[in-house]
């Protein structure tokens, strides 16, 4: 596939430092399911350490965009460049190893594993001891398991979950499950974190805490975040750039201020006057 020229209009944040290479560039991304074009002409650019939002009415195709980025669905059109590298032909696992981690709208934890093991599973790609080292408990096993244990607790402590390390993930309360999904995603060392409705089902105080945590994660780990959210308070507060999707197409892009006053967005949400 030919190297595509980045489209400057893809950026949502006008004053971004142009010297920094973007983490993610989508060029004319799209997918059709048996003739239905679920997403089309999706162009965005996300810079490093940017927090961006993807909003839109129900059924607009937001989660489909996440599924395209993580190759749960293979795109039928367009290109995804991750840190400048084309992800064409990669599968879900390879995209993750290349730097995209995600959470799911309908929580997908490893219910029967402990909280700590859920996080450690995500470190698997960065662990190297062999099956035999595991079976015979060779030094490599002890060394890497110790390191994994420490890193897991460190990541859990970002969300104050280190005390829950030994609890079975499926038995956690809803809010803790959502937080654990984020920690698990972070354990893969991503450069871009995709959050699918992270505040769904949370009360206002939990949401406020979540916002704090998302900022903290971005600052400490220096990663970019793209989130889907219906809670406008959260989106307008923490996102630096916002992209609005309706019927699978981008109808507006820009800063929170731009979006709030955009007539097309207001029409999509509230209908025509």
């Amino acid at each position: 596939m030919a190297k595509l020229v980045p489209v400057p209009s893809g950026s949502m944040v006008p004053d971004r430092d142009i010297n920094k290479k973007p983490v993610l560039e989508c060029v004319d991304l799209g997918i059709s399911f048996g003739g239905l074009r679920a997403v089309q002409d999706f162009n965005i650019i996300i810079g490093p350490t940017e927090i961006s939002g993807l909003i839109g009415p129900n059924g607009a195709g937001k989660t489909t965009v996440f599924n395209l980025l993580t190759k749960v669905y293979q795109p039928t059109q367009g290109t995804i460049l991750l840190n400048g590298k084309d992800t064409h032909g990669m599968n879900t696992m390879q995209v993750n190893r290349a730097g995209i981690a995600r959470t799911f709208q309908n929580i997908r934890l490893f219910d029967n594993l402990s909280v700590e093991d859920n996080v450690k599973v995500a470190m698997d790609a960065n662990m190297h001891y062999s099956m035999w080292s595991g079976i015979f408990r060779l030094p490599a096993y002890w060394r890497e398991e110790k390191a994994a244990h420490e890193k897991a607790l460190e990541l859990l402590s970002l969300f104050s979950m280190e005390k829950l390390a030994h609890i079975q993930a499926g038995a956690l309360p809803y809010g803790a499950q959502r937080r654990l999904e984020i920690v698990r995603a972070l354990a893969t060392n991503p450069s871009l974190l995709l959050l699918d409705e992270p505040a769904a089902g949370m009360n206002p105080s939990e949401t406020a805490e979540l916002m704090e945590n998302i900022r903290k994660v971005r600052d400490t780990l220096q990663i970019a975040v793209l989130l889907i959210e219906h809670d406008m308070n959260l989106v307008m507060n923490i996102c630096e750039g916002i992209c609005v999707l309706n019927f699978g197409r981008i109808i507006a892009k820009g800063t929170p201020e731009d979006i709030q006053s955009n007539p097309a967005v207001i029409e999509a949400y509230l209908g025509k006057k």
Partner: protein
Amino acid sequence: MRKPVSAPFHFLTYLLVIGAYAALQVLQARGELSATMRGMLVPICAYVVMAVSLNLTVGVLGELSLGHAGFMSVGAFLGTSTAIALQDAVPIPGVRLAIALVVAALCAAVAGFLIGIPVLRLNGDYLAIVTLAFGEIIKAIFNNLYLGVDAKGVHISLLEDTTNTAADGRLIIQGPMGIGGIQKISTFTAGFVLIMISLIVIFNLVGSRAGRAIMAIRDNPIAAQSVGVNLIKYKMMAFVVSAALAGSAGALFAMNYSTVVANKFDFNTSILILVFVVLGGLGNMFGAIVAAAVLTILPEALRPIAEYRMLLYAVLLIVMMLTANHPFVKAIFNRFRQTGQIQLEADDEEKEAA
């Protein structure tokens, strides 16, 4: 709080196996074991290994396999053939048995790898039918395989004996007749050692990054891939390890008898082992061991009621499944889990209050 595989539970399982071995050895030494019981010691060991190895596929990986006896068959035939071929070269029975078990494990691992290829593409009942088909194919092949060994090497033929094995050599596998004239070199101690090795392999594998990944795939394959877990590698690993252990169990089993035929390892045997795993509890090695031992002895114990015993066995099976899944019984089991959950919620409230 329920944790699927925890260290103290491993300890209990090892203790159970060692304790049972010691007790049975003492009973045997004092001559308190009946001839039937003595004859069943090795088969019980083989079935226990079959059960724990199948538990790796069904309980830990979460994929239904209906052809586990196929791997047992591969191990039984090729392991026993190896032992027979080495009869003169390796005079010490223990060493010969060990070599045969290793060869059996390797051959079954290769079979596991081959069947693993389609398994990786399929799910649920479609995967189950492929494992069933595999078991039937293995059975048909060994029912028609002729294998002879002489000074010039190994000769193999299908359907008819065209191996032209020299007179000084020996035709080991004789088609539907299977293998005859086997030296019974399997011992209870060998069986005990094999169980211990299987438990160490499975517990340590499950307790390493591989086991975590395998259980993650079972719980949620999409999420596992999304965090970079190599689905193909780990599914294959679980399948191959499970097959290898089943192969050595097959060799152990076969060398406890003077003859072995392919029809012994049919669909019913696969199902029998699956019953051990399900009754013992998915992923629960302790339970699988107990179920395998009890259900192997049960038909013998029911012998006094002769012709009704298999009928009673069937009824017991149904009743056990119905009871285990009865709402009342489930409620009792759930209480243990709920205590953990309530404790956790209390912790949460405490945190919010603070």
